[in-house]
């Protein structure tokens, strides 16, 4: 793994089911993540994905890549994300990643998840590369 390496993109269809399942799996019962009518009352055109689901998807994107390309013993040390354009049902989010730094067993990956409205998520993930031991 070297700085500049690009991760293969991961396309995630944003279904209503994914939004609701993600909200419930993260125990987030804010109405804007499952009730379209109440979401509209709060100025949103529809329900939208909660931040914990986005966080989980970013984590999955990185660990899947590491497991497939580096080895099974890589671990997440840090995930820092910022949300922008919401993930609404019917959209598609494409996650892309670029390795920005590698220092010994630590590496940093810049992640961007773009949907039809713009950047849903931008973030940096720090990983500990599996020491073959």
């Amino acid at each position: 793994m070297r700085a500049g390496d690009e991760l293969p993109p991961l396309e995630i269809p944003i279904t209503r089911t994914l939004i609701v399942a993600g909200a419930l799996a993260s125990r987030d019962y804010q109405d804007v993540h499952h009730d379209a009518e109440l979401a509209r009352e709060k100025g949103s055109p529809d329900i939208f994905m909660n931040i914990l689901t986005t966080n989980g998807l970013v984590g999955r994107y990185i660990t899947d890549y590491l497991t497939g390309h580096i080895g099974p013993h890589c671990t997440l040390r840090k995930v820092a994300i910022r949300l922008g354009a919401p993930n609404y049902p019917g959209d598609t989010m494409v996650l892309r990643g670029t390795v920005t730094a590698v220092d010994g067993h630590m590496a940093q990956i810049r992640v961007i998840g773009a949907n039809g409205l713009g950047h849903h998520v931008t973030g940096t993930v720090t990983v500990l590369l599996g020491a073959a031991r």
Partner: protein
Amino acid sequence: MSGGDGVASGLYERLKAYEGRSAVTRGVGRDPVNAPMIRHWCEAMGDTHPAYRGPDAIAPPTMLQAWTMGGLSGHSGHHSEHSGRSTAYDELFALLDGAGYTAVVATDCEQEYLRPLRPGDRVLFDAVIESVSERKTTKLGTGHFVTTRMDVRVEGEADEGGHGRGPDGAAAAADVAAAAEPELVGTHRFRILKYAPAAKRPERAERSEKPEPRPRPVINRDNAGFWEGVAAHRLLIQRCVGCGALRFPWLPGCNACASPEWDTVEASGEGTVYSYVVLHHPPFPAFDPPYAVALVELAEGVRMVSNVVGVPYDEVRIGMPVRLAFLRVDEEWELPVFNGLVGSGA
């Protein structure tokens, strides 16, 4: 919304006073880390990583916050005892709610993982209010960002040998009950926006019943002369007394020579379309798309943005000659617009 700056800044000082105070004290996870919740999470995320299955399973690190969530029924039992949510945090939210910032959306999440969580781990958490931002306006609406930082710990294993240190029997017993110090397993910084939702767009039926008034310009000492001219059906261009340069829109000083001295010249009203767009979408209250918005170059040489009327929106063209008119847009408001002059060649 109607509060002036003084009111708003007074609110901000009160919000700011909560920085550094506890948001959660001794919160206890509703459930210990457990396999079913891990499985539900992995199913929802489509995460098939082998580390999250089997006898040596760990929880996905990004689940960190999930173990601290109250869920549908909140932290039941003696509310504050389990959720640990502090009165300071409740007060801060009440202040924001009271100021109209009733909606909430999460914007940032920064997590650090010190060791994996495993089924059986009992999660404890404490959080502090790190910062409250000034009032910010976002696409969703206006509000304040609130950042909290949470330390997530896991209850220490009960030490079967006990902690019988020292001769004081009572103190030793208390020590055994408390077991080992909770171990820090992760940190979680979280930023939310507490905001006032932007006004709901009225339904079509409501709109046709009562037309919305046009948005009003902000009139101040730097542009009041322009609007006085409009009221008298005169389109006034500013002229620098220092260097004679014409300028539009109105500004307090000259961009060419920096002189603050100015007088005005009245536009003849003749001009041409320098550029234009036709607005189809989105519809704003008080406007009826499609309509043409043009950058009109006045005969005097300055340009101004206005509507081209008197010709179909789809016949407006660059270079089209136009002439000034004053359009009454509602009961008390007139605006300078331009009639497209068809047939005079473009």
